[in-house]
């Protein structure tokens, strides 16, 4: 079996009564890397948050299925245990909980009681991923995200991705605020995950991340919908020409979700 399938159909999402997503259709399968691009304010991050179950976002129409199971019926933690992962744009700081203790709790949450990961095995795996991502070992004993720089937070999200090995990951602007060296390391971590059993949805508004991670599919979001899809060549063209040609092609004047009151 080659991984899981995440199916999003006609998804409408509101926040505080305001509709942000207006009918998104998208399917991500194991082995596939999808990039969602688009200018700011077009609903990309809302899509990520809605898939994971952020408490402030309300799905008003449509469906999200993971291998046929209704994701919208699941609590946030159930979605994660079903195989979803969201690398967040703004990860919370959890004072008093070390990165290491948190990771062990998260790994054990996926395992049966009595079948917890052996401590030595956990430490070995963690050390090896820390090395791979060129993260100082001290991060394991620091409180989760507390006092982390922007770059450290992003690396930590990828560390979690590598440790938790989800079926489908959504990366929400994992490249924002990273310098070129950090961007390379983060990309290296994501590329290492590539396999038939792993599908990935990469949200970004810069093409530069895609210089290091080659997507199989590229989608452009505007006005709360996917307005154009294509292969890696679409990202190249966006890099060269920007978004205006798409707006012209589709007759869109303001690509953002309307701010009208």
């Amino acid at each position, binding site marked *: 079996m080659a991984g899981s399938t995440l199916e999003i159909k006609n998804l409408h999402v509101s926040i505080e009564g305001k509709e942000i997503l207006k009918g998104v259709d998208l399917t991500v399968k194991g082995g596939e890397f999808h990039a969602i691009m688009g200018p700011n304010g077009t609903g990309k991050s809302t899509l990520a948050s809605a898939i994971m*179950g952020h408490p402030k976002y309300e799905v008003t129409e449509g469906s999200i299925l993971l291998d046929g199971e209704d994701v919208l019926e699941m609590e946030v933690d159930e979605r*994660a245990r079903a195989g979803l*992962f969201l690398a967040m744009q703004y*990860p*919370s700081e959890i*004072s008093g909980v070390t990165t290491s203790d948190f990771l062990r709790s998260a790994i054990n949450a996926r395992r049966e009681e009595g079948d917890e990961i052996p401590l030595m095995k956990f430490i070995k795996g963690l050390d090896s991923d820390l090395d791979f991502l060129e993260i100082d070992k001290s991060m394991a004993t620091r409180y989760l995200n507390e006092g982390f720089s922007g770059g450290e937070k992003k690396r930590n999200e990828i560390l979690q991705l590598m440790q938790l090995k989800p079926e489908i990951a959504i990366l929400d602007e994992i490249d924002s605020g990273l310098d070129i060296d950090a961007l390379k390391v983060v990309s290296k971590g994501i590329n290492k995950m590539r396999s038939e059993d792993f599908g990935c949805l990469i949200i970004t508004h810069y093409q530069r991340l895609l210089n290091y991670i080659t997507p199989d599919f590229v989608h452009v979001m505007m006005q709360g919908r996917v307005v154009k899809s294509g292969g890696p060549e679409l990202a190249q063209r966006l890099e060269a020409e920007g978004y205006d040609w798409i707006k012209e092609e589709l007759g869109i004047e303001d690509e953002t979700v309307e701010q009208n009151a």
Partner: protein
Amino acid sequence: MTVDTKLPYDRSYIEQFSSERNEPVWMKELRLNALEKAELLELPKPDKTKIGKWNFTRFKHVATGGKIASLKELPSEIHDFFDEENLPENIVIQRNHTVAFQQLNKDLADKGVIFTDIFTALRDHEELVKRYFMKDAVSVDEHKLTALHAALMNGGVFVYVPKNVKIEEPLQSIFWQEDAEVALINHVLVVAEENSELTYVENYISNNQDEATVANIVTEVIAQDNARISFGAVDNFAAGTTTYVNRRGVGYRNATIDWALGQMNDGNTVSENVTHLIGDGAVSNANAVTVGRGQQTQNFTAKIVQFGKNTDGQILQRGVMKDSASSIFNAIGKIEHGASGANSEQTSRVLMLSEKSRGDANPILLIEEDDVTAGHAASVGRVDPMQLYYLMSRGITKEEAERLVIHGFLDPVVRQLPIAAVKKQLKQVIERKVN
């Protein structure tokens, strides 16, 4: 307002109690004198908590406890206080009002270190105890409870570290109230002479869920010039015990007194932790955590008074409140005139887990000198839903996520407890109280 409660103990009772323990005459006099004051003085008035109706005066006064031959004979709840693989070398276990077990490393004894129960100390080290007992730190006549304490003291330990002696292994006391009805009026006196160092950790435990009794605890911690004292405690009196606990430190030149207090009583509690930094360059870090549950009302005052120049006083209080528990946290930094270069900081944070619980954090700065630095912070809040969302998005259940956030909230204080086994035991108590 005076509370009309005639004390159930009189002069002849105290004379007899003191004589039976072969106490020196001055001690007997001190007790009798204190009894008179206890009749006259009023209860203390902790800020924002009314304790006028709390029972501090009616209790059974004495119970003995059997000796034990080795630490292995203790019940499991006491075993939690130490590491089975690495039994403490220096320990006093007080069972009700009797020493059940005690030992002190011979090397330390040879160096002149004293670690024994207060009654033995009154006989064998009379002059030392007399020099410090309720003199420089806590006074007999502060209020009704300090006077009552002196009159009826029925337990405690004396710790003395001579000049230049640095103790690496911690000294540990366990005050085990096995008798559900008996009061514990415990006096802990810790004296570190010049340039000495020690770590002392104490545990209080009782099991009286329904039987009502009293704990009246006075702890005096004296750090002479350049002495360093690390003081840890886990208080775990059951719901039936009404507690007054007063831990007071006095630090002289360049002395350090660090407190790490796990205040986990289930009954009503008034706690004062006051440190006087007398000498120039003296430092104190006063850290305390609590978890309030059930119907209990608690009042925690942490105060550092700075007299010396370039002194540093840091207060950190963290509390978790659930059910209908109510707690007041007062963190007071006081810098006296002349204490130039002093720094004073207070942080009080309260996490509320229920609608009915109440938490009140009051950081207070009282400054009588210009050339100082000071700061304070306070917050009372609920578990952040974004933190829960983040943790749950990694597959952690809501209950476990809340547990992580709560333990994390208390960790900055818990991690400072000096003995690993006691730290672990405190975590267990926290676990029990929050779930």
